[in-house]
């Protein structure tokens, strides 16, 4: 670049057909962090606009789910909850799960929803499916506050392991973003995705939130590793472990000993992390591949 001294340095863009396996422009993503902030802020801002209950929904939904699960699965069907009171067990699982479900659903529809923007202006497209994954943390934080109230109600004092919760949330975020960007790109071409998502999320939830890993181990034996391919199993089980491990052997409310393992569910965690990395790579790769033609077919 050769410009005269009084000019501010100018940005130079090179436009070429993209080649190579995966071409992420990290610098460009970093330069657009302010835009990302605005997009997240917009999502948060409009989420509860013109709703009567506003952010209370972030608490109401998991509370209702918790009540239904406790009555149905714990009381009626007598499913194991590792000796924990049903409300605690299910709410602890729903915390990361609802974050994941909301992220993946919104991310899958994000490209189609933002089509008018995509056909008119350039910005790094990866920000689009990433936005809901970040915005969903607000609901998570509100639900977490509710969870704290619940634990105090049951007389549980948080332990230091609580600080490991973010580790599992990172895993949840990464898998939601990986799967979300894959589905978002697929949705641009095939609108079937829109119909598959609610169904997928529902099935996925029943596979993840309802039973503790201890029960799965007993029932499936070596097949539990197939079960472990679901990264959210690691997240949910890991979160429960981080939140309740210090209660191991203690007798809560119903006089049953808490059987949650003292050590983290390593097998689930390792498997889940590996699967998440694969999901992230495949998701971003497919998204970047499709990125070239988004504006032409969206």
């Amino acid at each position: 670049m050769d410009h005269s001294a009084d000019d501010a340095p100018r940005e130079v863009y090179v436009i070429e057909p993209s080649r190579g396996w995966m071409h992420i422009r990290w610098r460009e993503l970093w330069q657009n962090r302010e835009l990302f902030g605005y997009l997240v802020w917009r999502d948060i801002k409009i989420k509860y606009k013109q709703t009567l209950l506003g952010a209370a929904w972030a608490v109401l939904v998991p509370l209702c789910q918790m009540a239904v699960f406790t009555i149905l699965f714990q009381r009626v069907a007598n499913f194991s909850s590792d000796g924990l009171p049903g409300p605690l067990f299910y709410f602890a699982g729903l915390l990361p799960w609802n974050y994941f479900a909301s992220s993946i659903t919104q991310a899958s529809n994000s490209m189609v929803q933002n089509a008018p923007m995509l056909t008119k202006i350039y910005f790094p497209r990866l920000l689009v499916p990433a936005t809901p994954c970040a915005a969903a943390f607000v609901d998570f934080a509100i639900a977490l506050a509710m969870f704290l109230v619940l634990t105090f109600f049951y007389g549980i004092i948080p332990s230091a392991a609580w600080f490991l919760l973010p580790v599992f949330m990172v895993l949840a975020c990464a898998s939601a973003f990986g799967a979300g960007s894959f589905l978002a790109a697929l949705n641009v071409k095939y609108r079937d995705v829109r119909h598959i998502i609610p169904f997928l999320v529902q099935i996925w939830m029943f596979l993840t939130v309802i039973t503790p890993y201890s029960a799965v181990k007993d029932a499936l034996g070596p097949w539990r590793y197939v079960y472990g391919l679901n990264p959210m199993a690691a997240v949910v089980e890991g979160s429960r472990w981080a939140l309740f491990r210090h209660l191991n052997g203690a007798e809560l409310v119903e006089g049953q000993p808490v059987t949650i393992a003292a050590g983290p569910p390593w097998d689930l965690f390792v498997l889940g992390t590996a699967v998440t990395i694969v999901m992230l790579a495949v998701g971003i790769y497919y998204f970047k591949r499709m990125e070239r033609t988004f504006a032409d077919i969206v």
Partner: protein
Amino acid sequence: MSAVVSMRRVQQSGRMNANNIAIQVRGLGKRYRLGETHEVYRTFRDTLVTLPAWLRHKARERSAANSGAYDPETPPGTFWALRDIDLDIHDGDVLGIVGRNGAGKSTLLKILARITEPTKGRAEIHGRVGSLLEVGTGFHLELSGRENIYLSGAILGMRKAEIRQKFDAIVDFAGVDEFLDTPVKRYSNGMRVRLAFAVAAHLEPEILIVDEVLSVGDAEFQKKCIGKMKDVAGGGRTVLFVSHNMQAVKALCDSGILLEHGRIAQRGPIADVVEAYLARATAVEPGTEIPPNCHRRYPCDLEVFRVDVLNRHGNPAGFVLMEEPFGLQLHCRAHKARPDYAVSIQFRRDDGLVLGTVGTTYVLDRLDMQEGGVYALTARLKNVFSPGQYRLDIRVDAGPENVDFIEGIPLTVAPVTAGDELPHREGVVQLRSEWRLEAEDADAALRGEG
């Protein structure tokens, strides 16, 4: 108001060195699959249903490859919307891009704005690109005016500090200061457009892209866009301008390129390019076979092979007389049976001004044609045009991915020479009026009781 804006810009960054390259394009090309430019989204079912056809297509492709008639660059079912474009644009150039619909103008702009990727070649852009087609991009109706200024500014590529600094100027320009904290959905349409334009106008890009075809809004707003462009051009910025309005192109641009079938057919001073465009646009004569270069690139199921202009007696004629009803006859061949072919014809002046459009409608005159059938489709029209040269653009519609355009068929309206009862008056159309003169009571007229 816009003059003030441009002054500010000049003060802020000074004039660019005129020798600097702003945009350098080398061998740029974009290949589309047929129909992809306006493809509707698919479902898995569509893909499954079209699978046999796709396999047949692949087989045909293979046999074509074996027979040597195969161009690996252009597999069957694809076409180049843009090909082998080389272009150097310097700082301060105001470049007009002209060409027929489908010649590749919008594709070129979309690639340069990085909205879509090229298939081949390379372009280097020095500086921030802004475009007046992005007006209102990222607006969210639930958010307030203030919030939307920040959001839209960020999406257009402004920094937070930059938006904050220009915030007052934007609000002032849009004239919405009382409604800053009202959700934009309660704004009137005009207010929304003004606010959106104000944000875009303060982006101060080094390179401005304007595609008239895509621009929206009323005459007032269009004027504002043109005014803004003049400011920008005058301020030593680089402007790319796509338009069908040859007068606007000539007025704004110094140099230009003429695109034809995705290639640059001519480049140079704007007057020469416009002249070349108009000369090529007059290539078809009524009553002759339509040469292939008047069609869009790909075949359509309804093939129009001749267009006749009919005089009031229904006979083919070289021109029509002012005030006399006339006819247009399209001779066409249907390659597929279809009950709902549609045709529309646009009348325009040489400079691009559209005078009117006529067309078949699905309900009243459905065009039900048999496979292989040859038809003459005739439209009868009242002639309201002033004497002069006009052009007809014909759009043939045979389904969503199956459209043909035939453009630039000349229509001559000759002045009436016999008898002077219908004088030719100033204007594009001849308005007819009846006048009556009556005596009235002067006092009653003054009281308004006429």
